[in-house]
């Protein structure tokens, strides 16, 4: 695609729309805006515009559409696949200042928010009113706009689903500047094609989310977790399906290993209780009465210790205890990053029954390539986060091993019925693997959709299928 390069006239027009203080030209821009959290993809925009309302976005898009200027949307920049990196330059449209709570509707149990509201702000806002927004992606400083754009998942997905399940309606500015509303406050909707759901997870390539109506439920009053050590990974992972089918669905089932805990201990500078075992499950239950939770925990503890070979079951029931274990789990990504010089990650999702085999394969690959590959995962929903660590490898060798390793990792995942991404998206970094996974027919269908929404390909060019 050929795009118009931004010149001084364009800058003046954009300044007119957002105000001079809210347009930052490339030369004055901090380097952070040229990459995302993982920093594997780098590209500079010609300018950053910080928008304050949907009207400004609409005006910007009308202009960009007319002038054929590429536009990439950015929230907090916490993505991991280069989704918010402006590959073709142009305008980087920052929605993080659009962070108003528009309406909490207690009757319909919905929350209308602007896209720049942070996930952690949503929790705080709704929980004090007794409501619950369940999606729980690890990165709490991500914006809701970014979460919707990637269909972010998180640890509670197995019980409560992913972001897509919690979005009732979207207001979107299309590439030509037109404002369109999809869905609404309704619980059911069987009216035509599910365009709202198509926009969720489209990674900023079809439209710009300018407002979202989220679904809420009453806040579960109680929750408790169990830290369950097993003699080895195979026993831990094989226990998961039995736990899930045994009783009520857990809220979250996480898999941890000694090595990841050690990284977290080093990174956080504090010890984690009972960190001496090789493999763990971290299982959470929530509910509305303490007795309900106590019952769930008792049943699963008995199952794990008496039948599934767990070494013990440790109870995590108070704020202090939750903090002592969950802070370690929450710090895994940062801890792994801090343990090496560079990382790249694989966010595959597999049928739960295939996880053990896949992790075996990963360990063998780590040995054969001589690359350190720590991992952790939401084993309850089959989503693994696997990190290749550069350590002291030279650049060329690292790139070689990474390409070779990733190729094999994805190939194996597809063989086992897995998908490229469970929750981080395709962005720029995983495009080739998506092509390989879905094949030409599906890519063609996706291209047809892209053509319909964005015929001139000005929105987030170079991403997902392009």
């Amino acid at each position, binding site marked *: 695609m050929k795009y118009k390069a931004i010149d001084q006239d364009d800058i003046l027009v954009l300044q007119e729309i957002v105000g001079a203080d809210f347009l930052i030209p490339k030369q004055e821009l901090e380097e952070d805006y040229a990459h995302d959290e993982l920093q594997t993809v780098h590209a500079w925009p010609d300018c950053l515009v910080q928008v304050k309302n949907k009207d400004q976005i609409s005006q910007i898009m009308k202009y960009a559409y007319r002038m054929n200027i590429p536009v990439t949307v950015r929230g907090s920049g916490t993505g991991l696949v280069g989704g918010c990196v402006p590959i073709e330059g142009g305008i980087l449209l920052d929605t993080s200042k659009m962070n108003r709570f528009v309406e909490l509707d207690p009757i319909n149990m919905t929350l209308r928010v602007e896209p720049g509201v942070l996930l952690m702000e949503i929790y705080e806002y709704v929980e004090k009113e007794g409501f619950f927004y369940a999606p729980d992606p690890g990165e709490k400083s991500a914006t809701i706009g970014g979460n919707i754009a990637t269909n972010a998942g998180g640890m509670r997905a197995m019980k409560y689903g992913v972001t897509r399940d919690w979005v009732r309606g979207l207001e979107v500015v299309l590439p030509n500047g037109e404002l369109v509303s999809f869905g609404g406050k309704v619980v059911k909707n069987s009216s035509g094609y599910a365009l709202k759901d198509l926009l969720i997870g489209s990674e900023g390539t079809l439209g710009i989310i300018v407002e979202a109506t989220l679904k809420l439920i009453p806040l579960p009053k109680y929750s408790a977790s169990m830290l369950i050590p097993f003699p080895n990974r195979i026993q831990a992972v094989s226990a998961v399906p039995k736990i899930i089918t045994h009783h009520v669905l857990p809220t979250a089932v996480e898999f941890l290993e000694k090595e990841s805990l050690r990284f977290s201990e080093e990174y956080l500078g504090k010890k984690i*209780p*009972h960190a001496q075992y090789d493999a763990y499950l971290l299982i959470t239950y929530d509910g509305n009465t303490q007795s309900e939770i106590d019952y769930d925990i008792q049943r699963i*503890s008995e199952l794990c210790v008496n039948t599934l070979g767990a070494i*013990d*079951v440790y109870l995590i029931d*108070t704020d202090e205890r939750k903090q002592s274990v969950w802070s370690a789990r929450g710090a895994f990504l940062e801890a792994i990053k801090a343990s090496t010089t560079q990382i790249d990650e694989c966010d595959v999702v597999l049928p739960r029954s295939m996880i053990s085999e896949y992790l075996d394969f990963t360990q063998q690959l780590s040995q054969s390539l001589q690359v350190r590959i720590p991992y952790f995962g939401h084993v309850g929903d089959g989503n693994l986060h696997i990190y290749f660590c550069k350590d002291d490898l030279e650049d060329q060798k690292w790139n070689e091993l990474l390409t070779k390793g990733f190729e094999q990792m994805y190939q194996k995942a597809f063989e086992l019925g897995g998908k490229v991404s469970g929750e981080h998206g395709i962005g720029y970094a995983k495009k080739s693997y998506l092509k390989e996974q879905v094949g030409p027919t599906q890519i063609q269908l996706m291209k047809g959709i892209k053509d319909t929404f964005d015929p001139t390909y000005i929105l987030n060019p170079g991403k997902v299928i392009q």
Partner: protein
Amino acid sequence: MNIITCIKQVPGSSKVDVDPKTGVLIRDGSNVKMNPYDLYALETAYLIKEKYADTIVKTITMGPASAKKVLEESLYMGSDEAYLLSDRAFAGADVLATSYSISQMIRKLHPYDLIICGKQTTDGDTAQVGPEIAEFLGIPHVAYVTKIEEVQEDGILVRTSMEDHEEQLKISFPCLITVDKGTLVPRLPSFHRKQRFTGYSIQTFSLKDLEDKDPSHYGLEGSPTQVEEIFPPNKKRDSISIKGDKKTITNSLFEILKEKKYI
């Protein structure tokens, strides 16, 4: 070696509301937990037990029958025995009457070498109960212990953290320490231990079991502190805006923090 650990059940959340009319704490009976500082007291005891095989850890608390829950928790964490001190006669006890009651109970659990308390509770926050128990028992005590350096034949070597310095002290048995967080990581309650304690009955002591049976020494009657009024804290927030260049802003901020004694 015989260790007695003193623990308390406290509200599960620090966000306890006060009824603005009556001044009474609005307690959610089901939302309770072990005082977080007591977790460190227990961990200190368990680490000693792991090192010295013949150590027995007894855990005690004073409170209503429902406080047995934290005692059970201590058994699941590593205590060998647990005892509850509970009697209507103890209701309304202030720090002094509480300490006296507990010291009376500890006399019943004789012999002991070491008593370990958390440095304070998160509801009362006085940090006085531990030292007062020791005074009633007439034994030496050290507060704010951050580390047990060494357990010796006739006493322990401890490190204690005061505001502006640390001290290393040798204290002779029998003695009492209150412990601060230090570098300890409290262990979690274990399901195996829970199974092991199935059927274990926590013994309850009441006034009639104590040496001093005079009810006027306990509860509200035995408390020299009378609460005049409880009122919710003022949650109003003030903000000041400081304008000027970097230097002016920094200096003004420094002056304000200094004036308010934050630095």
